[in-house]
């Protein structure tokens, strides 16, 4: 009996918000099917998808980004928006709702992600983010085939 399979659709909540994985590789361990991904590449793909998504970031997504950059609340606030740690707590506390940070700060975060993961498209992303993107809920969709697009 096979111990691996591809699941057409899988919703992952392990990053603090829902991510839809298309063609998710699964592995059977001790009788249960578990997600069998390179989590480092997966997180980078999610991060880049957030930077490019035409919808505002939520509090849980901000927390994910902060943790990816391994910054504490104070450092993150200082780096993005030059705000106190209490402002970062306020953004993150919105959970699955939009963080309500100002667009200039959110754009700075998105550009920092792009610069880290795909610097070649930085200029294009900068142009695409000229206007604030709308506040609409849009789940991140990831296909493991796209992992090679990130650095």
């Amino acid at each position, binding site marked *: 009996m096979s111990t691996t399979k591809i699941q057409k659709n899988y919703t992952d909540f*392990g*990053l603090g918000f829902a991510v839809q994985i298309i063609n998710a590789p699964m*592995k059977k361990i001790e009788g249960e099917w*578990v997600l069998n991904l390179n989590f480092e590449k997966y997180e980078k793909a999610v991060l880049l998808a957030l930077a490019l998504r035409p919808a505002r970031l939520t509090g849980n997504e901000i927390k*994910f980004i902060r*943790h*990816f950059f*391994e910054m504490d609340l104070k450092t993150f606030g200082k780096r993005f928006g030059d705000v106190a740690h209490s402002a970062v707590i306020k953004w993150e506390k919105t959970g699955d709702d939009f963080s309500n940070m100002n667009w200039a700060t959110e754009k700075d975060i998105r550009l920092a992600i792009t610069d880290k993961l795909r610097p070649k498209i930085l200029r294009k992303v900068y142009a695409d983010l000229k206007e604030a993107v709308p506040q609409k809920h849009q789940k991140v969709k990831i296909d493991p085939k796209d992992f090679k697009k990130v650095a």
Partner: protein
Amino acid sequence: MFMGHAQIRLQERNVTRQEVRQALKNGYHEKRKDEFNQEYNRWNYSVRGKTLDKRNLRIALSFDHNSMLVITVIDLDK
């Protein structure tokens, strides 16, 4: 890899995979909490550590051939 039980606990306790990794990276082996799992004939090891935001986590993990399995996660601050 995160087993089903661990994934449920992560969601219930609002802990992310990133936080589990941070705790494992900064944590220590809590030998007295290790348990032998008779059903699968393997040891579950306990690691205690802090996340970037100073959350105290205890993580039960095991090994299967070439994979590390996260069995469950406990938030010790709650």
